[in-house]
């Protein structure tokens, strides 16, 4: 691998990167610490996590967040997949990509406000669906880019082979491409879930009376102050995000180009 220096040679740069990462993660530490700090005599306790389950508002927000995350994790990657395909298949790749990346350029408040106006005018009441729509909008560019990236790693030779064997475009996609990009699709799913579980600004504008975990934390912070149980909730969010990110990393490990079993199937048709 030309140009890539070995680890020990580049340690000053790694030091800087390490410092930057510590700087970025530093604010997360107090939340984690406070979530397990004991009261009075005890130093360390998991009590707050247990207490969380007994706060009815938290449970409601948890349920809402779970349902929305499920929906977003399904809808955004599917739309992202379709978008990636449309960039490849339809005539206007740059325009489509631009439109798909649009949500990245709109500040959260503006996006939420715009959607709220739309729903208001159409007389659509705030519901989990409105929240889902806003979050899908935000997750869409990421999902699209992830799937686009992995699609580019698929050597077109496999698809060509499929077409040569008589498969229709659709068939080739299902049997050849989909299995190859599956890790990317699952990566897009986990990324979308991360985004959904953490999304606050856009959600808070269209949520009406519904609460998700992040908006619940925000409104409690503003109105009655945080408590150790809330810190436990924050710790859970952090841990979930890290776990999903780890999952994403695992899925998108570099793989050696493997023999694709589907090719043999395609040739049998």
């Amino acid at each position, binding site marked *: 691998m030309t140009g890539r220096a070995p680890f020990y040679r580049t340690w000053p740069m790694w030091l800087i990167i390490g410092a930057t990462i510590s700087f970025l993660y530093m604010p997360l530490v107090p939340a984690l610490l406070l979530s397990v700090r004991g009261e009075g005599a005890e130093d360390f306790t998991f009590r707050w996590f247990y207490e969380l389950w*007994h*706060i*009815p*508002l938290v449970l*409601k927000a948890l*349920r809402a967040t779970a*349902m*929305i995350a*499920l*929906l977003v994790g*399904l*809808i955004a990657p599917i739309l992202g997949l379709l978008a990636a395909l449309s960039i490849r298949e339809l005539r206007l790749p740059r325009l489509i990509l631009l439109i798909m990346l649009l949500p990245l350029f709109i500040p959260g408040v503006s996006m939420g406000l715009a959607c709220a106006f739309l*729903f*208001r005018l159409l*007389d*659509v*009441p*705030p*519901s*989990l*669906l409105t929240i*889902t729509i806003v979050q899908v909008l935000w997750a869409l560019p990421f999902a699209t880019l992830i799937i686009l990236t992995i699609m580019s790693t698929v050597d077109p030779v496999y698809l060509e082979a499929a077409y040569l064997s008589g498969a*229709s475009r*659709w*068939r080739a996609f*299902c049997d050849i491409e989909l299995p190859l990009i599956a890790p990317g699709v699952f990566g897009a799913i986990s990324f979308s879930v991360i985004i959904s579980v953490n999304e606050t600004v856009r959600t808070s504008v269209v*949520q*009406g*009376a519904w*609460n998700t975990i992040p908006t*619940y934390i925000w*409104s*409690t*912070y*503003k*109105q*009655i*102050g*945080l408590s150790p149980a809330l810190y436990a909730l924050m710790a859970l969010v952090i841990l979930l995000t890290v776990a999903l990110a780890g999952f994403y990393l695992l899925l998108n490990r570099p793989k050696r180009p493997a023999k694709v079993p589907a090719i043999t199937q395609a040739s049998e048709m």
Partner: protein
Amino acid sequence: MHKFDRINRRDALYLGLTGLLASAALHVPQSRAAGTINFADIGVGDPGGDWSKFTAATGYGVNLVSMGNAPSAVLNVLVAGGGQGTYDIINIVGGMQKPLVENDLVVPIDTSRIPNWSKDTYIEEFLGKGKPGFQFIGLNDKIYGVPTVLQGDSFAYLPEKTGPLDSYAALFDPKWKGYVALEDNYTTAGQKTGLYLKKAGLATINNPDDMTKGEFKTVIDFLIEQKKAGQFRVIWNSFEQAVNLITSKEVYVIDCWEPMVFVAKSKGVNAVYADPKEGYLLWAMAAYLVNNPSRTEEQTAAAYGLLDFMLGGWYGAKITGLRGYMTNPQAPEYAKSNSAEFSAEDAKKVEEITANVRRKFQQGGTWQNRWPTEVEFYESEWARFKAA
């Protein structure tokens, strides 16, 4: 084999799954049939999640939904599609009758259906018709809100750093320059400043609770001057932030709410809520009955039951203990006589708080005005203050 066989099946599976999930997601979890009252509250009215006493007495459960205190939050809950059909009672800081009534969002309260109303002497004493407090619960001689909580606000300080303080002048005292914090709210910070300026003779203000454009401009000019001199460390707008400012001793004098002092004390920081000679900023919570023509008679009766419950002894004692506000006269006696539910310590606390707040009301001050006549002007002036 037909080209579309597998696709159709897979498609159907996908669609079915999504449809199932979508319908599950859209299914509104709150059931109206099984006797539940939908109660939107800003966090103050929640007695720790325990409505069992009410349910035992009436058979109705209470579904508490938390909402913000800003006018937009109220709008979101009530107007933004279907809110009127979903909620029975909203419990917010009073004084919002004008916009609510103008938009047909709430209905007048029939106080004869609330037995505890007449037992709550505070209502007549402080919020009776003709008295300034009436604007918290009524409009045009009709009652719209049930005052479940009453309180007088001032400011907090750290006595070890400042010694005893007894006037709002402390907020503007150059001695504490850079160690003062104000609330980001023109109806509290703005009005307290108005009260101070009037009593100190620094400005001609007729009614701090409904200032004219010119009067409020004077207040803002004064605040901007102070801000430019570096008097304020921060303008806070979250409960947690205010508590942190006290417990971390980031500021010594802070315009805030009394519960924050309680929380700070519980964290071991000695903070005192001041008794300023100019008086207090008085306010009351008001539980409004949402206007819903299609609500059944039973549901409305149950809602009245909840309103009555909130003016009762157990609820009052619970809220006083949890939040530090005064509720109703029955609360201290209830706490004392029900040692099974309230420890002697709790009962004493309830009694002390109630006595303290009563004293504040008797001293008087100015009633917080949540929807001043010149509210738009207040808004833009406050924005001018923040941007300066």
